[in-house]
């Protein structure tokens, strides 16, 4: 089992330490190429003008906000089914990144919508489901933040992530149904029927760069989370140790609760 080899956090830390610089370099290179192509190579749209270039940020962000949720759902399965010790670390690390990509997709979408549709916001089916996705990301992050014990928080969040994964297609379907019912005339498409190759290549490069960025951020966030948990464990241990030390000498048992100030414990 290859994936179980990386269940050991120390081995994971060692491996990612080797991988991360290369991944970061690849990410930077892909962004350099992608941004160059976006600004200097790809043509302006004959209808949309310069604003079409927002697409090169918007579409990768929109694609990643869904991929991130899929990764979180798989990680949650790993937490609940296989009890993989890094799975909840992965899910927790992915949530803020996913929320950020979702926010970027919404903001760039509305910036594009202002000159194109004449409005920052439209209750379009796709935009509405992305907004719901953002609320779900933020709810998950809030759930993690309310529980002190990371293991218990991870399990609770895994249940919610999986319920959300079952519900997301239903939400998307129902929002589309609702939208066609309310405003049948507004059919809005980001692009025309097809995209020309001169735009498709930069788009793919930017999508690849953004995906690499996700993995760099995700691995780094996982490393931080592992280290944060170690710090927490060491602090708990130190606190338990200092309490034991305070309780141990039976010389002055009466004064122990009162004199046990943080200053005295040091």
């Amino acid at each position, binding site marked *: 089992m290859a994936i179980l080899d990386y269940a050991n956090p120390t081995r994971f830390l060692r491996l990612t330490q080797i991988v991360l610089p290369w991944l970061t370099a690849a990410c930077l290179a892909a962004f350099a190429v992608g941004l160059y192509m976006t600004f200097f190579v790809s043509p302006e749209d004959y209808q949309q003008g310069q604003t079409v270039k927002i697409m090169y940020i918007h579409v990768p962000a929109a694609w990643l906000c869904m991929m991130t949720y899929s990764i979180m759902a798989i990680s949650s399965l790993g937490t*609940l089914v296989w009890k993989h010790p890094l799975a909840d670390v992965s899910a927790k690390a992915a949530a803020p990144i996913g929320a950020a990509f979702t926010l970027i997709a919404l903001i760039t979408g509305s910036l594009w919508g202002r000159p194109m549709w004449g409005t920052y916001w439209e209750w379009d089916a796709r935009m509405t489901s992305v907004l*719901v996705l953002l*609320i*779900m990301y*933020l*709810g998950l992050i*809030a*759930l993690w933040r*309310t*529980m002190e014990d990371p293991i*218990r928080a991870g*399990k*609770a969040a895994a*249940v*919610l992530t*999986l*319920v*959300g994964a*079952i*519900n997301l297609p*239903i*939400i998307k*379907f*129902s*929002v589309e*149904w*609702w939208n066609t*019912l309310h405003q049948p005339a507004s059919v809005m498409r980001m692009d025309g029927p097809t995209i020309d190759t001169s735009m498709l290549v930069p788009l793919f490069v930017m999508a690849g760069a953004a995906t690499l960025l996700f993995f760099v951020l995700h691995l780094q966030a996982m490393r931080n989370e592992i280290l944060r948990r170690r710090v927490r464990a060491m602090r708990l241990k130190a606190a338990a140790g200092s309490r034991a030390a305070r309780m141990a000498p039976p010389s002055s048992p009466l004064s122990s609760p009162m004199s046990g100030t943080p200053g005295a414990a040091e």
Partner: protein
Amino acid sequence: MSERPLPWAMTLLRRELRLSMRVGGGAQVGVLFFLAVVTVIPFGLGPDMNLLARIGPAILWIGALLATLLGLDRLFQADRDDGTLDLMLMAGRPLELVVLTKCLAHWLATGLPLVVAAPVLGIFLNLQPLAMGAVTLTLLVGTPALTLIGAIGAALTVSLRRGGLLLAVLVVPLAIPVLIFGVSAANAALVVGTPFRAPFAILCALSLLAAVIGPVASAMALRFSSD
């Protein structure tokens, strides 16, 4: 367990209902909150009877959703505080069935009164008899889904001191499909030419789906909250 599930489930149901009806149960507050929400909306919109008649079903549905969310933290909290939940976890009976029974009792105590109150509140909103019937019928079919989905949020936040607000945030995205199809089916009575049967059937399907996902996910969350 070789015993038949029905007798103990009935006992549990009776216990839950008795607890929610008596002093401290708080089952009636949900209807009062429903009334308060419906009363307050015309103050925001203005007393335009035509407008109220047009958006009446939506107001009633949103009011019912908010009232359900308000009562959800009662679902497991009291049982956890006095230790009953631990006994239920240790009893060796299928926890999914326990959750389903508790949800049924909770719905009978808090959801059904909302359904019964809906036609009365519909008078305030200038609803015609047909629309009133449609709203009541959709609420009857749809509010169990809200309770069952909400049970997941209630189970996840049961160990938190003040989980009520977080519970609402977690549950609202999952309740959106129920709201969409409930309001759509209810609106069919208002707008000529809109379908009733299709959204109503989907609403029934959502309730049935929630009856599966809700107890399974809530039971899982409750098990994790205790260890």
